[in-house]
């Protein structure tokens, strides 16, 4: 099977009945609209719950274990990258220090490899050690299809397919977001680390809520 997956093919493959109201049903009004919370909608669009493996060999689910209820910082890299990665990873090291002990508690950093075949957990463990990554900063690998799905869903894609295929010239942005508050943003990974931290904290919980969470934990 090559080319596009048609609706019918997908339905057969997934064993689903064709969704009513999806295509051709140009809706006889008044239409009944689905009640889906914005948070769930964002999850559905952007956070496939694929299985990934950390540099410690631990298996995690992307949404359930890494994103849900957290303030997260995400980028893509690979261990042998000599282009944009060293600068961005160095900056994230500074970001981790500036955020202090919140990293690993309610703020988490995730660097996902673009070369999952090469970047095994062992390779990533060595990388983490060499670069002095602290707790709360995970390097993640997984099945190539899953990683590619994540890359696309998280928007680390160039609209020019030729540019996009060139992994050595990949997107250097850092994405950050507060999942329960549905607040998201991104900035160049080569920005000043202090600026990256400031940008991340604009999406933070209000002080009062942070105090209450602190009291609970």
């Amino acid at each position, binding site marked *: 099977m090559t080319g596009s997956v048609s609706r019918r093919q997908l339905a057969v493959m997934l064993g689903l009945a064709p969704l009513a109201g999806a295509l051709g049903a140009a809706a006889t009004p008044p239409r009944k*609209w689905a*009640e889906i919370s914005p948070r769930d909608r964002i999850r559905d669009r952007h956070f496939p719950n694929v299985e990934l493996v950390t540099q410690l060999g631990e298996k995690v689910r992307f949404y359930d274990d890494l994103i849900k209820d957290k303030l997260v910082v995400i980028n893509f890299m690979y261990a042998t990258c000599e282009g944009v990665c060293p600068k961005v990873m160095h900056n994230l090291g500074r970001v981790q220090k500036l955020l202090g002990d919140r990293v690993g508690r309610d703020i988490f950093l995730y660097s996902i490899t673009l070369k999952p075949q090469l970047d095994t957990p062992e390779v990533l463990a060595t990388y983490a050690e060499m670069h002095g990554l602290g707790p709360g900063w995970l390097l993640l690998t997984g099945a190539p299809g899953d990683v590619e*799905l994540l890359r696309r869903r*998280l928007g680390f894609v160039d609209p020019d397919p030729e540019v996009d295929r060139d992994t050595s010239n990949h997107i250097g942005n850092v994405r950050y977001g507060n999942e329960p508050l549905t*607040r998201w943003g991104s900035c160049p990974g080569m920005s000043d680390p202090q600026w990256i931290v400031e940008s991340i904290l604009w999406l933070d919980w209000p002080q009062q809520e942070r105090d209450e969470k602190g009291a609970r934990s």
Partner: protein
Amino acid sequence: MPFVSRIDRGKSRSRQIAALNRREIVAARLSRREMAKLGLLTSAGYLVAQHGLSARASGGGPESPPTTPWELPLSIPPVKTPVPTLTPQWTTAPNTAAGEGRTRAHQATGLFPPALLYEVHQRAEQKSVHPDLPLQTLWTFDGHVPGPTYHAYYGQPILVRNVNDLPADNGGFGLPSVSTHLHNGHTPSESDGFPCDFFERGQFYDHHYPNVLAGALSTHPPDGDLNESMSTLWYHDHRVDHTAENVYKGLAGFYLLFNQHDTGDEGTGFRLPSGEFDVPMIFTDRVFDQDTGLLAFDLMNEDGILGDKFLVNGRIQPFFQVKRRRYRFRWLDGGPSRFYQFHLTNPSSLGTVYPFWQISNDGNLLPAPIQVSNVRLSVAERADVIIDFSQFPAGSTIYLENRLEQDDGRGPDGDVLPAGQGNYLLRFDILPDSVTDGSAHPSTQQFYALPSTTATPRVTRTFRFERTNGQWAINGKFFSCNDVRFRVQKNSVERWILQNSSGGWMHPIHIHFEEFQILKSNGSAIPAGSVLKSRKDVMRLEHNHQVELFFRFRDFEGRYPMHCHNTLHEDHAMMLRWDIDATGDTKTNP
């Protein structure tokens, strides 16, 4: 009845299929092994179908539900009215104790004391964009999208108290922290709506708009240079890093400036169509979720967002009943990322070209009206036009059509579609009533001369607009609130060279505070009779494009930005801060 571009249809369908497929894969929570079994993954683990699953098939996002065109009349935002008093009263220094978010004192309220006071509240409200879609929770000024229109007058300074009553719950996107920019205002920095002058929920911010001509405190005392008169301004949220989503949610409106020539009365001055015949129109494109019918914003996008629904003044494809006479329309591309080329189209006579008159560029009246067959706008550009509907028979209809093809945030692909194959934005219904027309015929009009550009610049600065590894940059650097990239000496003349070095991308570049004139575009002077022979505040940088701009920075001091007005580029660091002060610097590549 034509309302969807035929050319787009194939791509639309593939985008929609991709979106639905992705949703079902997620819903089914398939593992990689299961996906491989189903043939959705190749043995190497890559997704089988480039377009069937790609999150960005042909630049698309989710596809909106169908809507029937021409269901709603054009909505015209109400005119904002002043209040007798503000509580607490406005103060020169920031009233931090009372909850004002301003951090710097007003520099010009002493010279230009506010004659009128306004109070506006930013708040969430349920709005209908189309009867086929559910009510939308939008962010509004005073409950309106677009916000109320300010009618301001040169020589009459005003102060606007802007209150942030936005909710903590953003409904999926938007940051309830705002900085309201008056686009093209000759405004002291602390009232400009600088991106980093944001204020939070529960706070307010007093903006002082002197409504004074450039040069009032320098080259042309005491009233300023009449030839710097501006007409069509707009205001919009400018919150650093979050402008695109906040404006997408509704935070924008018009601010019109009148004077003794552009009077707002077609019986006087330039005799431009006035009252009900002077209509602002903001064009925006949006996406609505297929399942919930609610406004959808792609949170994982730094390149540009295109919608498949076309709104005028906050409603999808409205109709507008017009009388058989001249109208002044104030067209504004409200973004976030789409460029337009507007034509008048008669579907039953597609070969006929209907010329009209362009009278302004970026809301600044041209030296004289120019007859055109179309108008092209990039994000934040404005054009005032005069259309004479007496040329159309009573009872007929005519469409405003966008014929510029654009598939993604990179900008239009260069193709201008044939008549009838673009997107119909607005339907004009020609009423049978007989009506008088007190406005002047555009061919007889002269407006303002262009200010001289022969002064020698104190400094020439060069700016490269770039993309490296998907990161937007100017001269290789990224935006930060506290990084003052260069300093302009107050009341000096500068020449700025803007270069587009970002490959296949276009950038509408906006410079706050002072208008510019284009000295050269790709090495050539702008020919007489071009609509670019004008005063502007947005420079449309096309592919491999270089322009030289003439500026004169007068009267006020403080911080201002230059940025790309594709708001997705702007939010992701394609912006810089420059300051005006007494001494300035001479950095040539800041």
